[in-house]
C-alpha cells in the first residue's frame, strides 16, 4: 500500500487553488481567442477583447481573474492501493482549500443559507469545499478542481422527463435554460449536460462535464453529435458575450450520460462562465 503524506496533499491543493485563480487554462484562452476572431458583433468582440486583456493582467500581476473566486469543487479519484498518512484525505483537501483562499487573497464566499452570515470565521475561510469521491484501481490520487462562481450556477436547472421526451425534449430544455439565462451567467459559456442516471446523478454528471477541456468530445458518437447540435442551437440564440448580442454565446457543450431507470429520463444543465477555472493533478 502506497502512502502519501497528509501535508503533501494540503500543499498540492493550496497551490492548485492559487494558480487557478489567476491563470485562465490554455483550452479556455484558445477558445476565447478563436471566439474573438469569429464573433460578428462589434460590441461582443470588444467584451472578449477585455476578457483576454483581463486574463493577461491576472496572469502577469497574479490578480484573481474574477472577484467571484467561487466555491471550491473537487472530483477526487482515490486508488484502492494508496492511503493518506497523518490524517483524512477530506480534511487535507479542506485545509488546502482554506490555505489557498487565504494566502491567495481570494474571496470567502460561503455563507449560511438564510441568515447569509459568512462562514469564514466559524466553519473556515471559504469552507466547506464541495468534494465528490470515487474509488478506482491503482495507487494514485487524482484531484480535479474547479472554482465555481455563483452567477453561472444560479441559472442551472435539472428536470426528470418521461422517456418519451427523447432527444428533442432534452435539446429544447437546454435551449430554454440558456435562453432564459441571457447574459446573467457571463457568456461565452460552457454548458455541462448530465443525461440519465437518477436525479442527483444527472446533476453531478453535468457538473463533472464542465471539468473537461474545451475541444474534447464525448466518447460515444451519438452523444458527441448531440453536443454539436446543442452548441449550434445555443449559438442561434444571439445572446453573445455578456448578453450584448452576438454569435458566440457558448464555447462548448459537454455531455455526460449514464444508464437510467426505465421510467425516467433525467436531465441536468450546469452552466460555466467564460472564466472557466479548472485544473487537475495526480499525486
Amino acid at each position: 500500500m502506497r502512502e502519501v503524506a497528509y501535508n503533501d496533499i494540503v500543499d498540492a491543493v493550496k497551490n492548485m487553488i492559487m494558480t487557478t485563480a489567476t491563470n485562465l487554462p490554455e483550452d479556455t484562452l484558445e477558445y476565447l481567442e478563436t471566439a474573438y476572431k469569429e464573433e460578428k458583433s462589434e460590441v461582443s468582440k470588444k467584451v472578449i477583447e477585455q476578457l483576454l486583456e483581463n486574463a493577461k493582467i491576472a496572469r502577469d500581476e497574479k490578480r484573481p481573474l474574477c472577484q467571484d473566486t467561487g466555491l471550491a469543487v473537487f472530483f477526487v479519484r482515490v486508488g484502492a492501493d494508496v492511503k493518506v498518512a497523518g490524517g483524512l484525505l477530506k480534511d487535507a483537501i479542506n485545509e488546502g482549500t482554506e490555505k489557498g483562499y487565504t494566502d491567495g487573497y481570494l474571496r470567502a464566499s460561503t455563507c449560511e443559507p438564510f441568515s447569509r452570515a459568512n462562514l469564514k470565521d466559524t466553519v473556515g475561510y471559504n469552507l466547506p469545499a464541495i468534494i465528490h469521491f470515487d474509488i478506482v484501481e491503482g495507487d494514485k490520487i487524482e484531484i480535479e478542481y474547479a472554482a465555481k462562481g455563483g452567477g453561472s450556477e444560479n441559472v442551472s436547472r435539472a428536470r426528470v422527463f418521461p422517456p418519451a421526451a427523447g432527444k428533442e425534449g432534452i435539446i429544447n430544455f437546454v435551449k430554454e435554460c440558456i435562453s432564459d439565462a441571457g447574459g446573467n451567467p457571463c457568456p461565452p459559456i460552457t454548458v455541462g449536460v448530465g443525461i440519465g442516471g437518477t436525479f442527483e446523478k444527472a446533476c453531478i454528471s453535468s457538473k463533472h462535464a464542465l471539468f473537461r477541456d474545451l475541444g474534447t468530445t464525448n466518447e460515444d458518437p451519438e452523444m458527441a453529435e448531440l453536443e454539436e447540435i446543442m452548441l449550434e442551437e445555443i449559438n442561434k440564440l444571439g445572446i453573445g458575450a455578456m448578453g450584448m448580442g452576438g454569435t458566440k454565446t457558448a464555447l462548448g457543450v459537454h455531455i455526460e450520460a449514464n444508464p437510467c431507470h426505465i421510467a425516467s429520463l433525467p436531465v441536468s444543465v450546469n452552466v460555466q462562465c467564460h472564466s472557466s477555472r479548472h485544473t487537475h493533478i495526480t499525486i
Partner: protein
Amino acid sequence: MAEYNLTTPLSEEDTRKLKAGDIVLLTGTIYTARDAAHARLVKLLENGEEFPFSIEGSVIYFVGPTPPKPGDPIGSAGPTTSYRMDSYSPTMLKFGSRGMIGKGGRSQEVKDACKEHGGIYFGATGGAGALLGKQIKSAKVIAYEELGPEAVRELTVENFPVTVVNDTFGGDLYQIGREQFEVKD
C-alpha cells in the same frame, strides 16, 4: 454609439443624453452594494433615517471584491449579477441615485424607474475583475463592515469603463443586441 467621459455625482443632464450602447468612462466617487447592503439601505430610505452617503446623483456598483493584497486599495472587482437587486433599485432611484453598474438583465420595474427618475443601468464586463480592479484608485468601507465582501465601500475610480444597457428612453442593449443576432428557424 457615442463615447462619453462623465464625472460623479451624475446630473439628470448627464444621464438623459445617454443611449443604450453608448460607452462611458466614469471618474469620481462611486459606492458598492450587493444584496445584503441593499436590503439595509432601502430600509433607511423608507424610514427616513440617516444614509451613509449622499444619494443624490450617486452611482452604485454591484460588487463584492476580493481582499486587497498588501499595498493595493482593492482586489479584483468586477460586477455581480444585477437582477438580485431588482426589488431595491427603484427605491434607490426614487430617492436620487442616478446610476447602477452590474451585469445581466433588469426587470421592467427597474427600466420604468430609469425612465421616470433619469437613471441609467450600466453594464461592466463580468469576469474582468483584475482589469476593472485596476481602475479603482482608493477604497474605504463606510457601512456594514460585518458583511465582509458585501460591505458598503466608497470607491474612487478613474476612467472606469462601462456600457449603457438601460437608458432613460426605455432602450435595452441586451434586447437590441440579441434581436440583431438571433437566428430563427
